[in-house]
């Protein structure tokens, strides 16, 4: 088999939010961009997301949150990755997230936040520019 690094990303739905249409569409866009996408399904705890990301050896975790708990959930995932010595995994997020929270989350180590209206093309472009297979 030819030697080739392929980008592996995880699309995760943390917390109690049950709306995963957006996450699925993002997953599909990543697939079409040539990434291998591990989808976790709904209602994930930060612990579950971090453990799965390590077992799957992904380069990036993308989380979707539409229910308001993003501050705690996104931040906890970043912290736990650090604890597990896995903070080389890029974390980004998307959803209905107020501007003030975006500032706070970026300070906490979330690399990018995508809000409603962002095109799929822009998201894929961002991933290609900011995430490289480790």
């Amino acid at each position, binding site marked *: *088999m*030819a*030697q*080739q*690094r*392929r980008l*592996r990303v995880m699309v995760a739905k943390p917390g109690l939010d049950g709306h995963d249409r957006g996450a699925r569409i993002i*997953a*599909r866009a*990543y*697939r*079409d*961009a*040539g*990434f*291998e*996408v*591990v*989808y*976790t*399904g709904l209602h*994930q705890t930060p*612990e*579950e997301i971090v*453990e*799965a990301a*390590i*077992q*799957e*050896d992904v380069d990036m975790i993308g989380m979707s949150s539409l229910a308001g708990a993003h501050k705690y959930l996104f931040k906890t995932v970043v912290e736990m990755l650090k604890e*597990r*010595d*896995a903070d080389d995994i890029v974390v980004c997020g998307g959803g209905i997230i107020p501007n003030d929270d975006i500032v706070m989350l970026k300070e906490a180590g979330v690399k990018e936040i995508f809000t409603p209206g962002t095109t799929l093309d822009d998201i894929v472009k961002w991933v290609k520019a900011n995430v490289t*297979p480790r």
Partner: protein
Amino acid sequence: MQSIVEKVVSGDVRTVARLIRDIDDGMPEVRNVLKELYPHTGNAYVIGITGAPGVGKSTLVDQMIAHLRKRDKTVGVLAVDPTSPFSGGAILGDRVRMQRHSMDKGVFIRSMATRGHFGGLTQSTRSAIDVLDAMGKDYILVETVGVGQDEVDVVRSAHTTVIVVIPGMGDGIQAIKAGILEVGDIFLINKADRDGSDKTYTDLKLMIEMDQRKYDKGGWKPPILKAQAVFDEGVAEFMEEIERHAQSLKATFGGLDIRKQKDMVRQELSEMIKARLLEEVISKLTETGDFDRAVQAITAGKIDPYSACDNLVLPIVGLSHP
């Protein structure tokens, strides 16, 4: 400092995850790691689970993990999903059904994409099984993509091969009976509450009993079971059948180290040679530019592809034109 091999054998999750990535990505240095890991393999019991898309393989695997964990067995899972032939990307969604086990230290779950090209699937899945085996997992569950010839190859590395079907897929069974029926050790009719499960049972029974002569000589006769994996119905009985099959293997081969069986070795080695040759030949031809030149010559109508293939391959393997 611990070597990669020591870390794998001690069960270090990050090292194992990384190594499987390197295997998948075809990194040449993994070959030496795999050589050193080989003596640490041969202890795990490998179960292959195959069947058409949507029959409930992932849900079944999820329940199997739960049953094995109740018996304090550690479990490794390799779940394979298809790669898009157009983008090269893949959605690896088998994990969704198994995510409740992700916090369990006794379980390691890894999703893999088929990646299509050059028959690499068989080889990298086989190598990933070795890694989980060396890691010390008692059971390794390999969930294949939907039915096909390649998947038959993968499940041949398993001790027990399970074919999952659902009622009302008469055509499906017709389609798979030539290849897959022959490698199935256990047949599971999932979603058995649906209409037609008795018909499916009869169809399978008929096909299996056509091999009656084989069983008269003491061969393993594949049992057919019904289950509703999502409700954990019938899964306990199914797990018992797997144990029964393991006992039968032990009695036939005098142990469970089936990898040292001559047939297995022959097959594994020939697969390995195929993959390796292909890799070496293709990379050589690509590096020298001979491959691209041949493509150009064929498109320009200067040569036919059969002759071009001879010209490319024969010198490499040291043969002259016939």
